[in-house]
Every structure is written in structure tokens, then in C-alpha cells.
């Protein structure tokens, strides 16, 4: 099964590859892996005033896993925490036209988003949102 043009595009020109300092207070880090295939994904968000101002990822895995996380970071930028929660793996599947055998890659990306949001929220827990 050939990769869709969008997957190839994200794979060849990954958006937002890299990382933030994970100890920074305004950074949320999601680190997930798929034991079945051994893919590893790190997705980070930078948050200001409840809005994701920047996102970065690093992925070790197949083309679909890289494309899924690349797309996820694109989508995350500019979204509020609440909006980001609503991103579903099915949205990624649709956008990238992933075949059934690659759906787990999109699940991994959704898990990474959720983990990054949870990490950020854990850091800011007890503090009023929007503090500098």
C-alpha cells in the first residue's frame, strides 16, 4: 500500500521537528510508544494564557507515525487547551488518508497530544491559568 501524498509531504518536510526544555513551566511533554511496532513519539506544547503558542515533535518510527505527529503539531498551534483536547485520531486518519494497518499511528499521535496536555496541566495544577 502506497503512502498518500500528504503522508509523503509530511515525511519529507516534517513541520515543527525538535524539542523544548521539558522542565520549563510553560511546556507540556507527551512521550508515548507503541509496543507492537516499537515506534516512539515525543510531542511537546508551549502554552501561554491557555493557548498553545508552539508545538514540537520527535518521532522514531514509520512514515505514517512521523506524518501523524507532524500534522498534530500543525493543528495544535493556536488552539486553546480545551480545543486541543478535542483532536481525535480519526481526524488524523481522514486528513492523511491512512490505510487500516496504519491507524495505530494516529492513535499514537492522539495519545501523545493527551499526554502533553496532561503533563502541562499537572505542572500548572493549583495555579490560576494564565499566569506568566
Amino acid at each position, binding site marked *: 500500500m502506497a503512502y498518500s501524498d500528504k503522508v509523503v509531504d509530511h515525511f519529507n518536510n516534517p513541520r515543527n521537528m525538535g*524539542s523544548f526544555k521539558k522542565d520549563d513551566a510553560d511546556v507540556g511533554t507527551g*512521550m508515548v*510508544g507503541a*509496543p*507492537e*511496532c*516499537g515506534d*516512539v513519539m515525543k510531542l511537546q506544547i508551549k502554552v501561554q494564557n491557555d493557548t498553545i503558542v508552539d508545538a514540537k515533535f*520527535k518521532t*522514531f518510527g514509520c512514515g505514517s507515525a512521523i506524518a501523524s505527529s507532524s500534522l498534530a503539531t500543525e493543528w495544535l498551534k493556536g488552539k486553546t487547551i480545551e480545543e486541543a483536547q478535542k483532536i481525535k485520531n480519526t481526524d488524523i486518519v481522514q486528513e492523511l488518508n491512512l490505510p487500516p494497518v496504519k491507524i495505530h499511528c494516529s492513535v499514537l499521535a492522539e495519545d501523545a497530544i493527551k499526554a502533553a496536555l496532561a503533563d502541562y496541566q499537572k505542572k500548572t495544577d493549583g495555579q490560576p491559568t494564565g499566569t506568566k
Partner: protein
Amino acid sequence: MDNHQSSSHPDTRRQLQMARSMCWHCQSEVTGEYFCDRCVKVQPVSKETDYFTCLGFPRRLMLDPQKLEAKFYELSRTFHPDFYQTKSADEQTISLSNAAVLNTAYRTLRAPIQRAEYLLALETGSVKDIRTSPPADLFEEILELQDTLEEYRASDRDSDQGHRLRSTLQTEQEALERRKHEMEAQLQQLFADWDKLQDAGEATSLARVERDRILKQMRDLLSNRTYVNNIVNDLAATIA
């Protein structure tokens, strides 16, 4: 009412079991492994039959590879198409599909790691059910190594930088291979623990705790081993 309920239960179960082991041809009960005792017709492997049962082994993790192979060859002969050329179309179909199941069963159980993965899936339903917290340290390491790999791929292999990166990667590869072997040794211990627990066959709550411990640790180790294995292969392929 209560009486009726409790007496009807075992009965239903027995009927179900009998229905499953009824000969497709003569409808008599099948007690043998793969053939009807009465009409000697080959019986299909049921979809619910797990690979251990299919090959006639208990759910153990330290199977004797020679015995496993011997049983596989024996059953391969049993279902070989040559012996069914003069038989009915039904029997030919059954023997062929049995042979296919048998091949998959043997391929799955032959390799100890795959065998353990399969057992985990059987014992826990879906492997994802006991999905563990990801090993963050290991992931960081893998992703960092990935960066070094990229750097090496982009570098001039014959330059000083290329040589330096290559030797860094080589050291990392050796360290990871050692870790992989350590994990495999730990897995071996868990395999032995599992077999011991199964052989004891106790249904105490203590045994259940031990069972969960083994399965959980096995899941963790198998996952981490996959991650390490992938990066080791990637390293090996890149610096080869």
C-alpha cells in the same frame, strides 16, 4: 428457581462442548485429536483453538524446541495434501486449512519472544489492556540517538566528524545490545516463573497476584525489548 438455575448450567456447558466436538460428517462425538473415531474423517481446527492446543502443548513458555518441531512435522504429515487427493472436496478443504493454521501456530510458538507475546495476548485478552506507562528515560535516549543517527547520515563518512559519530554510534549499539541481552535474561526468568506457577496449578489469591506480576513484568520487558531492538537494527543498518 435457584435449583433449576444451578442444575441447568453445567448441562448447557456440556452440550456446547459436545456440539463443538461433533464430527461434521457423521455427527458422532469426536474424542480424538483431529480425526473422527467412527468415520475416520479429518476434523477442522476450531477457530477458538489456540496455537498451544493446536500443537498439543500446554500454555507454557519454556517449550522443548525439539518436541515442538517433532509434533509439527507429525501433524504436517497428517494434513499433507498428498494424502487427500482421493478424498472428498470437503476433506481436502479441511486438511488444507488445518495445514495453514498449523503453520501459523508453529511459526508463532517456535520463537520464545513471539510465543510469550502470543501467550500474553491469550491471557490478557487484548495486549493493550495492560498497556504500561512508557519508559520515558529509554524514549529520550532513543530519540537522542536518532538525532545522532541523522547527523551521521548527513555527514561525510570519511571526514573526522563522520569517524567520530560512527564510533559513538558503535559504542551505543554495543551498549544497547548488552541491554537487550539483559532483558532477554530477565524474560527467561519470568518464563520459568510462569511455568512453575502453571505447574503448581493453585487457584489461591496469592497465585493470582503472582500471575498478574509475571504478566505485567513480561509486558513491560517485551515492549522495552521491542523499542531497543528497533533502534539496534536501525543502528546496525546505518553504520554497517
